[in-house]
């Protein structure tokens, strides 16, 4: 079985479709699953499941990207209103492409 490169664990209220669109535009596959919890804790769990060690967590307030190799603090984070640009930035981290400046604004 091939593991998912990037995993998103999203609680209710997280912008799943904006995340999916952002990853699709960057051409990076994303596996979205629903789970209860807080964004950072979900991201940490997701990072453990992702083949690239990149996990996204989302709740009704914010989105967080955590690297499995540095789980102590978010690598990227943004409010849920910035779901699309956050997703594109996270996809670029996965694809090793330069981020746009001010991805979270």
């Amino acid at each position, binding site marked *: 079985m091939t593991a998912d490169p990037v995993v998103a664990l999203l609680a209710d209220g997280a912008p799943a479709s904006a995340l999916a669109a952002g990853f699709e535009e960057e051409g990076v596959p994303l596996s979205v699953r629903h789970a209860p919890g807080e964004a950072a804790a979900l991201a940490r769990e997701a990072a453990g499941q992702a083949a690239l060690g990149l996990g996204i967590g989302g709740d009704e307030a914010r989105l967080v990207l955590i690297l499995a190799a540095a789980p102590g603090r978010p690598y990227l984070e943004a409010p849920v209103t910035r779901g699309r640009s956050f997703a594109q930035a996270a996809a670029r981290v996965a694809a*090793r492409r330069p981020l746009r400046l001010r991805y979270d604004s």
Partner: protein
Amino acid sequence: MLVAGVDVGNSTTEIAVARTEPGREPEWLFVARRPTTGAKGSEACAEGVAELLAAAERRVGERAHVALLAELHPVETGLVELGRLEELVLEQTAIARPASDTPSGTGVGAGTLLAVDELDGAPRAEPVVPVIVARVDYDDAAGRLREARAGGWNITAAIVEADDAVLIGNRFDRSLPIVDEVADAASLPLGARAAVEVSEPGASVEELSDPLRLGVLLGFGPEEARSARTAARALAGHRAALAVRVPRSASRDTTGSVATDLSIVLVGSDGAEETLDEHAAPPPPGAVAAIRGSAGERNGLLDVYWHTLPVPADDPGFARRLMRRRALALALLARGETGGLVEAIGRLCPGGARVVARESDAAVLGASTTPGAGRAPFVLDLGGGTVDLHRAEGAVSTAGAGDLVTRICAGLLGCDSALAERAKRRRSARVETPFVLHHEDGSRSFLGEPAPPEALAHLCLVDGRGLVPLLAPLAPEVWRGLRRAAKRDVLARNVRRAIEAVGGVPAGELVTLVGGSASDGEVVDVVAAELADLDLAVARGDVLGRHGPRAAVAVGLVLAFVGAGDR
């Protein structure tokens, strides 16, 4: 007596404070530097001198009684962009620009620009390129395109304002060339002819960068070939691009000669005029007395130096983009006046200011304090504005040094001078993943902490433990090559010009490098390589055995003052 040698350079002001007593070596108490606070020779420079004198007073507990100065030679440097006027000509006939980090599809499509809303009507016979503005959602846009094609419209490409190309392509036609992130999509001239090209990842446009092919795609007549050529150059080296023909009613006559507008005329010391050939070697110092033309008018010149920007041999796309800009690094050395500054500095010390030596004598004296040098008969001062060769007979100054290298680096990196100044001196690395750095020699290292997201996948300056991202999409090896080439093209070449201007330096002789640029080991390397055929001992100065190549003139001024017996 407490004296202060003061060297006001084009970019750095240096001070050396010493106590001098008859029959004794100077007691060196304070050596420091700071950025020059005005155009060299202007009164504004006194502000920086005042700060250094105040710092010395705080350290030594006493104000220097007299300030010792050398003669000054102001210099002006700049980067002339010959490409700007070419872009103005281009704007009159075509809109041509690279687009999209994430385009969709591949290939070329050309047709008439129309708003996606117009696809609701009866299909037109000619091919069309719909423009999708940001207010149209990607699902909605894809749906309209599907319906239009089913209704008989011939859609050959699309231009999207938002970052939605892949989303639209995935829902409409994955093979159709679609460019996005076109910020001014809403103001493109609907009804005009447009061409869009997307190449495979890693490749660059082939048809839009070919002037004849682009001319055909946009429907240019032979008389507009010049515009097609300019547009093609603007698009070369990019993965995705669009070109739009500006409607005839909006364009102005473009038959005027570009070459005439861009030329720079050199007026020789004998009065003869000659057009500057950017690919020719500059004449020796003293041969050009004035310039006219697109770089402005300057008289009273002592030297003119120019060089085109270096291009990476193995990156033809980047090379073509640079050629399109046609930037020329141009430095002028003009006679200046020092009167105002000497008086202004004089007011800072109770004993006033004195011009005690030629800069050459001071430089030779200062460089001779390098341990092991004994006597340093030939001193190359690699400064900010000029490369000066000092020797007993006096100095030869050539225009263009560290500041011009900075300007070239800024032009190559597309950044401001402050960042370019750091980029000139620092190593670089590319952040390959949050944890892996790719260095200039091709090696990799692993980071203990992840690199900041803004540095990811960027060429970065390695500044201490920090990473400063640069926007130029260059591999570290390529940037190192360009940076070294900039130093060679300006500093090493001007060193050679200066040596040739004095009739050469005897084989085996010691040449001591001083000045701010000589503190950069890479500069010492390229200068030594340039002079390899002359069989010279090229060494870096270490003034007073502890200041490196800095403060040679400031220290030398104090030594000149002591040597003159005026204590």
